[in-house]
């Protein structure tokens, strides 16, 4: 076995139905050689944490366009921790105001991506975040 495959969960919590961004990211990560677990719309933080556990993912990407990020993301972080998965790296994509983004980064999210971000940027950053913490 050469290099261990990076497994990423792309999750779409909340009530908005705009999953194009999540699909674009999933596709870009696939093309970068990662295994992407895609779970579809309207996931609760509990469902996201449960999936992250069963799939033993290295990273979780949370896509939110509804504005509910300050409610949903901290809850996911908390649940991951509760499950013993504090090593799982979390990133957020969507429309997130700057102040909120700074807050989320402080909570432990490693990146917040807005519209128009270059895929090579987040692919490289996810790879670094995961490999950097690999035991």
């Amino acid at each position, binding site marked *: *076995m050469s290099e*261990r*495959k990076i*497994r990423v969960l792309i999750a779409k919590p909340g009530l908005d139905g705009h999953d194009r961004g999540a699909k674009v990211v*999933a*596709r870009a*990560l*696939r*093309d*970068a*050689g*990662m*295994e*992407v*677990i*895609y*779970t*579809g719309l309207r*996931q*609760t933080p*509990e*469902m996201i944490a*449960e*999936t992250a*556990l*069963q*799939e*033993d993912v290295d990273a979780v990407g949370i896509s939110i366009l509804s504005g509910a990020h300050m409610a949903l993301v901290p809850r996911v972080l908390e649940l991951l921790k509760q*499950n*013993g*998965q504090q090593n799982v790296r979390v990133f957020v994509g969507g429309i997130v105001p700057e102040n909120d983004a700074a807050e989320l980064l402080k909570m432990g999210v490693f990146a917040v991506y807005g519209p128009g971000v270059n895929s090579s940027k987040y692919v490289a950053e996810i790879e670094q975040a995961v490999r950097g913490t690999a035991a």
Partner: protein
Amino acid sequence: MTLVADILSGDRLALARCLTQVENDTPQGRAALDELFPHAGRAHLIGITGSSGAGKSTLVNQLALAYRRSAPRDKAPRVAIVAVDPSSPFSGGAILGDRVRMRDLAGDPGVFIRSMASRGSVGGLARATAAVTEVLDAAGYDIILIETVGAGQSEVDIARLAHTTIVIEAPGMGDDIQAIKAGILEIADILVVNKADRPGAENTVRALRNALELGHPAARAMQPKGHHAALESQTAESAAPAESELWLPPVLVTVASTGEGTAELVSAVQRHSEYLKRTDLWKERERARLQTALEDLVTAALVERWRETLADETYRHVVHRLLERKISPFEAVSGLVRDQKPRNRPD
């Protein structure tokens, strides 16, 4: 070591991490398999295969729900799902999307779902799928539902792994000649025509039933896995069931999106399991599966050992001669395999 103890005591994170080790075929993964092996061998492995879009994931979701609702939560069978999706042949990456159809199962601690990428295997499963089911079996899951990649005609590995293989068809996918071709339909213990609310479903059911009637049931019983006849012939004689004990694959209809037909499917699976146990075919299938796995491992180990004794230089040279058509592939093989000291030999 503690990983194994944690798994046996029901720790789901330990289980998930072990599955990763096993999937990546690491030394830790192998060590865990060694320890877990005596604890496995209790689960009913049920394969679900069929072309992409036939409704495999949706039907798996319904089956799991049915098992979980068959008794109070703590008494109902615990269900594990292994869902395989293809890896990209270009990047090696994958999108594992089977969970999208399984959201009804969220929040039930008696269900464990694991997605796997096929990682270059072409038989409909990943190379490590069998090992992953061993771990889930040892972890105490009673029912293990194995969903293959979208399968066309020849992805028949699932029949070697599962006790019961369910093949799903959707209406309008081909004529009655498709139905008598060799391959995926042959491996079905149970045939399901899903999306039965669509026009043409009765025609599909009829074509499948007719195809089954053309078949020779005795031959089927002798070789439950026709693609592995050589292995089967050594072991099957004792287990050949009497004429009255032949299993004729039932053709069922379902609408997986609503759950229609699921109860009938569950009872057909149950009948099949009883049949296998009554006729000793259950044991035979286990034997065929373990023997196949053993042979695969032996082959891999021998190849590895052979490769260790072979200098890269020599190998490149042989490939070069092959390219120039100076030697044939067979000559190349006999040179490479018979020669015990091929290192740096001038030619």
